[in-house]
């Protein structure tokens, strides 16, 4: 696709055309041409999802070591999360729509996380960050819930102990794909194993 730059002098012409279009003054071929040039037709859901995926509001909620890397993703100028439209941290679950479970989930903490999740408004997504949150990792003992997917639905799992900031950013990109309705199939795609997903 070649990039065409419109001249600045065209701008006024295009504005006037748009004005005419909105007023219903255009007719015939002119109208057809203008509509083709100007309008995108899509389903409402797609447009909604497009808006949602580019305005994720993560909940400012840290649990353990992974929270440090999560704050690094948000706070470090090197991994600027606003490039992906997810840098607005909300500390109230009522205003957030992305819960990043960053760290090990103790049995004492699990009900509280569930309550936070319940307080968040639909639509909401969950990223399970790190080995501990996903499977209890190395702390497979009396105090830890083995995987936060035992008490809430998880959209993306991030491996690592702790995951690098790039891994978290990548998971957010994967989540954006999922929000758009094209979830990443991972190994299923590679081995042509679509249709083998477990249904909840």
């Amino acid at each position, binding site marked *: 696709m070649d990039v065409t730059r419109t001249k600045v002098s065209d701008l006024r012409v295009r504005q006037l055309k748009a004005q005419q279009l909105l007023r219903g003054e255009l007719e015939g071929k002119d109208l057809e041409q203008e509509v083709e040039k100007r309008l995108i037709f899509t389903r409402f859901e797609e447009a909604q999802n497009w808006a949602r995926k580019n305005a994720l509001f993560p909940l400012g909620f840290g649990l353990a070591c992974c929270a440090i890397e999560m704050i690094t993703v948000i706070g470090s*100028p090197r991994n600027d999360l606003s490039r992906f439209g997810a840098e607005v941290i909300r500390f109230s679950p009522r205003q957030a729509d992305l819960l990043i479970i960053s760290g090990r989930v103790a049995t004492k903490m699990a009900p509280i996380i569930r309550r936070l999740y319940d307080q968040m408004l639909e639509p909401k997504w969950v990223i399970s960050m790190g080995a501990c949150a996903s499977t209890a990792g190395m702390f497979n003992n009396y105090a830890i819930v083995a995987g936060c997917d035992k008490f809430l639905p998880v959209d993306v799992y991030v491996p690592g102990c702790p995951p690098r900031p790039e891994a978290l950013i990548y998971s957010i990109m994967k989540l954006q794909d999922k929000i758009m309705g094209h979830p990443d199939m991972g190994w299923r795609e590679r081995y042509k194993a679509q249709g083998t997903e477990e249904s909840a």
Partner: protein
Amino acid sequence: MTDPTRVPYRERERSVTMERLGEEPVSGTAAVTEGDVQDELFTINIGPHHPATHGVLRLLTTLEGEIVRDVKPIIGYVHTGIEKSCEDQQYWKAITFVERMDYLAYYYNAMAFCMAVERLLEEEVPPRAQYLRVLHLELNRIASHLFWIATAALDIGAVTMLWWGCRDRDLVLDLFEMSSGQRIHTRYFQVGGVMEDIPPGFEAKTREFVKVMPRRLDQYLSLLDRNEIWLNRTKGTGVVPVERLLELGVTGPLLRAAGHPWDLRKGTPYSAYDQFDFKVPVGTVGDNYDRFRVRIEEMRESLRIIEQALEGLPEGPHITPNRKVALPPRHELATSMEALIHHFKLVTEGFRVPPGETYAAVESPRGELGCFVLADGSAKPARVHMRDPSFVNLQSLPDMAKGGLIADFIACVAMLDPILGGVDR
């Protein structure tokens, strides 16, 4: 008449009294008239999910108006059972576990544990390894303090510091990544030395960091130290006298800010700290401002130590040559049967530690980090306990916050710098 903008904000607050409550008990059931509305106590719950608690700390706070009358820290929300998990791991694997306790000062956790095990084994650590340990410990202290200043200033309202602190902390993490391959939880320290020698280029990059960092610290001070809001919110708040701090077992920058020059690096030098020339920054009043300045100056002293460690880095092995404890170098595995057997024994069974118990303490960025190890003669420790400074220091929070405004209470939590992974373990 004085200019109202020059009056400290505490004195502008006329609706509440700063004195402690009297002896007479306050009844919550009595009808509240307009006159005694400030006598009504109410308890609010802060946390476990709250931006100002630095993790999942829960604080039951009793307020009278805006004055904090009582604070009860409730902890355990990230209790991981690491001490129990360590009992199921061989000694060299347990290092990985203890590192996850205080997740900003991971090198210190590993150091305390390795020191305890080395003491039980009576293992000598070669001088180069000692210097490399000191180098990384001090880099870690800087990284930890940088993260502290980033989040603490954010709590008080200086949002810029979050970006600046994280920016410079990334420089340190790059160094860690260079020497060990991980950003955090590096597991660089081994029993008997360090995992690998530093790679080529590490020294030049560290020197660059040492050169750039003092200017960055000046930047922080120029942002904060002459900022009226910062000074108003930190000066004179959260003061606890030295005697009380000592009673509560508080160590580290909190104690030094109150004027007590206790530092384990000077008091009972471990590793190679007796060969370095550095000062111990000490505050005078013990308020939040002193805590802030002490930590900033500690970073400067750490930079000096790093510089000296690079200058005086001795030649020699980076880990003990004792093959019963340390893995043989990789190239020997292809040529020496003995090395292969040692490698096999170490990886499958681990080394055995003679029965006994010991307590080794290091000066972490938050105070005395002690590690108690009980060995029963097998390849797994019978008990590992960490005396974590965050856990003990947290007990001083009620003393700091009582009688102050709730806004200062948030500043106190920030300046206390509790790491909840260390508190709960």
